[in-house]
């Protein structure tokens, strides 16, 4: 029994246990213990985070001539660590006060199902991350898809259900694309084992590689929600019950990136992909993938800007941030991929914290609609602090961890001589900064609404995981070397030169990054400012929340003022014309096409003259045969009738 066996077996048994006790209140404690123990098991495997040899599971399956096996390498371990740790934080978040309220509003059964869905998600992700060949990858992939579906299915509202069914159709399209690719890989290389495929790839033609990369890319890309498959994700994740959204938003879509790294980077290798020129353009396959990443950072981020619901805004951001990861990985040098892979970790921490903060606000106020929020900073200061730290991370501003990974991506783009992609990434970041400001302003700033005057700070059980995540966001921002160790090991595992780094950041001849130094300077600056302000005669005055003005017009404190409607009116005036719902219309057109074809087929099945039809079909079949059959020259005449059977058969 290897440690991996222990981990998978333990999680599987834990899933069964959680499903069995789902009706009891103790399920919330149980799940916390489960994820804590799973984390311990992952820590036992921590050699993988520092370049250890892969760990194999002793369970294998031989079916239809294929040998399925499961293993953990450094990359899987990195993703698994994020998954389990986020699950741990989520389970603490949903254990105390939140559980009580949810049980009251719905039922203990519903809460138990949420816990079950969470643990099944974790289990399926671990199975996917452990996959050692294409078939086990596909099995894991489908398990993840259906576990996600189960999570989305828990919300019974119409909007959520609509999002869930949209998701499942997209997920099936992804699965079918991958299955096609797997079948073609098998017929081209004769194997489904990673190592053997890697050897066979050298003999494949460029067209074949291009076809495979496209099919795998579409499949994995749908999960990541890249352009043009971005429509399903935001609603599906935002509508899951609070903690579900925390977990799904933080890590679920990254499984697509994991698979993409394994297949496209590790097996096909990006140098091979880059060698494929797209005819009639100056681009190659790698450029295309990078541009998909860049567009994914831009379009969903600006869609996020327009959202009027905190959960939707965050979920749309999640789609956009996936673009940075793809972009980073597709740059293919050690800095870029490090940025892309590291962003998975950083993103998971702050996205989880943000969703938790929004869920906490919803917990206290009952809404996440911007028009019904505002001014909560006086009531929920700690939640506000959590959100501020997290959005600094999301916007990629030092000293939080999001800055480091984005810096790496930018740096790699510049060093690589990709100015256009760089500009695209910067435009995406601009949208991020604008929309996270909208998030924090509309929720916490401005004047408090009358109905929220009695709102209290989030309960301790929800605050603790948020604060814990804040510590991680800040800690790994100041000392990115902790994460970069694991990232370097993961890079090594997929055959990319690992990034040279130290505790504070990276060393680079053209100018490295030392976050300890950056943070030091920043806090030094703050300290100087504070001294100037408070001690050297700077006057400061404390202003009450309700003591402010709007457009020069004085408002009494009876009229609460909060600017949240038509936010960014000026900007929207400029870019509003671009929101044409092009992709939505494309999607609708596809549905219409299916509907049309379906009617056409139905007309056939309603035909009134079936017997004539049979005759016609027989005629067409004969005609098909006659026209396609190429007659051999020498036996062109009708074959002779044999003289019965007496001639040939011995008795």
């Amino acid at each position, binding site marked *: 029994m290897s440690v991996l066996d222990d981990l998978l077996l333990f999680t599987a048994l834990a899933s069964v246990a959680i499903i069995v006790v789902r009706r009891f209140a103790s399920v919330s404690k149980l799940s916390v213990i489960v994820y804590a123990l799973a984390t311990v098991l992952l820590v036992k495997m921590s050699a993988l985070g520092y370049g250890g040899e892969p760990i194999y599971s002793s369970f294998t399956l031989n079916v239809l001539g294929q040998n399925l096996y499961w293993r953990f390498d450094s990359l899987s371990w990195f993703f698994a660590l994020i998954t389990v740790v986020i699950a741990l934080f989520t389970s603490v978040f949903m254990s105390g006060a939140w559980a009580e309220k949810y049980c009251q509003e719905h039922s203990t059964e519903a809460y138990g199902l949420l816990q079950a869905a969470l643990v099944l998600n974790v289990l399926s992700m671990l199975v996917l991350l452990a996959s050692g060949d294409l*078939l086990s990858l596909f099995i894991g992939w489908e398990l993840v898809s259906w576990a996600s579906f189960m999570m989305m299915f828990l919300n019974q509202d119409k909007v959520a259900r609509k999002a869930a069914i949209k998701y499942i159709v997209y997920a099936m399209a992804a699965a079918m694309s991958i299955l096609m690719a797997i079948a073609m890989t098998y017929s081209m290389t004769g194997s489904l084992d990673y190592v053997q495929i890697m050897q066979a790839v050298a003999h494949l033609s460029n067209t074949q590689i291009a076809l495979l990369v496209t099919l795998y890319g579409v499949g994995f890309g749908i999960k990541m929600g890249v352009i043009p498959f971005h429509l399903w994700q935001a609603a599906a994740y935002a509508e899951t019950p609070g903690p579900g959204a925390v977990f799904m938003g933080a890590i679920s879509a990254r499984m697509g990136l994991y698979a993409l790294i394994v297949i496209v980077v590790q097996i096909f290798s990006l140098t091979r992909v880059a060698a494929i020129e797209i005819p009639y353009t100056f681009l190659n396959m790698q450029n295309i993938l990078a541009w998909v990443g860049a567009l994914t950072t831009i379009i969903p981020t600006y869609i996020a800007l327009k959202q009027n619901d905190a959960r939707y805004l965050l979920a749309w951001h999640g789609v956009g941030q996936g673009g940075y990861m793809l972009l980073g990985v597709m740059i293919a040098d050690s800095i870029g991929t490090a940025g892309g892979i590291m962003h998975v970790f950083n993103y998971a921490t702050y996205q989880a914290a943000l969703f938790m903060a929004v869920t906490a606000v919803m917990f206290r106020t009952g809404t996440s609609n911007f028009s019904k929020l505002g001014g909560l900073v006086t009531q929920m200061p700690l939640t506000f602090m959590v959100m501020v730290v997290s959005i600094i991370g999301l916007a990629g501003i030092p000293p939080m961890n999001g800055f480091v990974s984005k810096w790496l991506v930018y740096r790699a783009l510049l060093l690589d001589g990709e100015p256009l992609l760089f500009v695209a990434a910067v435009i995406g970041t601009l949208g991020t900064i604008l929309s996270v400001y909208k998030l924090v302003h509309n929720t916490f700033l401005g004047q408090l609404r009358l109905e929220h005057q009695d709102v209290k700070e989030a309960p301790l059980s929800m605050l603790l995981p948020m604060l814990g995540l804040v510590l991680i966001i800040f800690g790994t921002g100041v000392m990115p070397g902790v994460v970069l160790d694991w990232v370097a090991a993961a890079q090594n595992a997929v055959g990319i030169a690992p990034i040279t780094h130290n505790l504070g950041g990276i060393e680079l001849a053209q100018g490295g990054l030392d976050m300890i130094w950056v943070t030091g300077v920043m806090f030094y600056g703050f300290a100087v400012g504070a001294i100037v302000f408070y001690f050297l005669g700077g006057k400061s005055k404390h202003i009450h929340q309700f003591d402010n003005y709007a457009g020069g017009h004085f408002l009494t404190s009876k009229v609460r003022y909060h600017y949240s409607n038509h936010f960014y009116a000026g900007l929207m005036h400029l870019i509003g014309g671009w929101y044409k719902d092009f992709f939505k219309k494309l999607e609708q057109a596809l549905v219409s096409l299916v509907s049309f074809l379906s009617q056409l087929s139905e007309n056939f099945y309603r035909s009134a003259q079936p017997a004539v039809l049979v*005759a016609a079909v027989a005629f067409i079949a004969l005609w098909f045969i006659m026209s396609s059959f190429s007659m051999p020259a020498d036996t062109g005449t009708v074959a002779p009738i044999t003289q019965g059977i007496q001639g040939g058969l011995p008795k």
Partner: protein
Amino acid sequence: MDNIVLLVVLPLLAAFLMPVLARFSEVVARVLGLSVLVFAIAIIINVWPQVNSQATSIAIGGFMPPIGISFYVDQVSILFALAIPVMVLLFWPWQRKTSIREYSLMMLLTASSSGLVLSGDLFNIYVFYELLAVASYSLIAVQGRAVSIAASFRYLLMGSVGSVMMLLGIAIIYTQTGTLNLAHLSLLAPLHLDNMAGLAAFALILVGMGVKAELFPVNNWVPEVYGSVSSNLAALMAGLLSKLAVIVVVRIMVLLFPQPEAMQLMAMLGILGVITGELVAWRARDFVRMLSFSSIGQLGLIFLAFSIPGDTGMMAGIALALHHMVVKPALFMLATGWSGSLENLSGVARRSPLTVLLFVLLILSLLGIPPLPGFWAKYLLMVGLAGQDSAVYTLGMIAVPLAMIVEIAYLFRLVMIMYRKEDTVKVKAHSKWGLAIAASAGAALIAIVLQLQPAGDKLTTLAQQLSDRNYYIMTVFPQFHTAETGMQSIK
């Protein structure tokens, strides 16, 4: 071993005896039918180990083939021969007070379908096929509703034109070769059937058998018939009878027409079946109608799989056929309580959560979600398609995934309706028997998942036996040591 013949003879006798016996004692007549079925199962279980080790050919009445008529028993045909009495028993019209005529027709159906899978020559295949057709027309009409009589008439029209086509095909083969024994034909085929006339014969047989096998485009009787008969009969027809016709077509194709043109014709019709079936099911607003069109789609998949040259395609075909044989009847059993508009099912999951879960399990397997058995079948199909160069198979490779996406859309739209909050259920309770069958089908799927390795091995053996032409010839004519010597002696 020779008592295999009883599988056909006994039900046939019972079918004709039952109405007569019923004049004296109805109870005895009814018991007779059931006991014949049980006896048939016992016979098959008795010869099972023998067949597992070695296929055999049984000459009826002691006349050796190719003059005498023969039964061919290998692992594939014994498996389907076992499925016939078992499924007839399962879907026996227990629930209703039925006339003895219906029982008698069921026995006729058993006899003719057993004969169909076991026959080793084209003439008997035709005879049993006609018998089967007559039995099924009457069984549909005997349901007594006006719609079912109309549906039966439609089916009759198509079926009779189809059997004329088939007879024509058989006639062409006979004029070309002078024999109707499959093994003998298989020896002669490379010489005499590898030409335009031979292929025309295949096309005619394909269309003729296709009526029963729900082959596109001779399948437009399907929705009306399944919609108007009892769920039991629909389950039997969709689950069992269609597969028997497919197996016979595949046997004929493997032995007589291994030409790429023949395979591609079948592949093309299979693809069209998948696409149209799934598309129309997407529009269906009625549970049984949806299942019928989904069945057309699945049969299209099966045809496509069998048309792929090589063992992988054969394995995929058998896997898909067996899988559909388990899942579709189970779904039709669930339809006993859920028939009618889909909207009637709104919120049904609150009332019967376990039944809905069972439904979800069945459709997940139907969609091919790993690790359920349906996935492995679909995986084999895709691998088989990917291994072919011809454009038809590439088309199939594109069409099958698209059809699956349409399929998941309509199946999960239904699941969403079932899990709605508001409870406006207007459905009856399921019969206990039907529910038990559906549940055991679900259990069977899970059992296969737990026994993937042996199931895969068995599938491989079945596929090898079904696709091995020489093995067939050698079994029927043990005097030849190889197919080549057989060929020479024919010349």
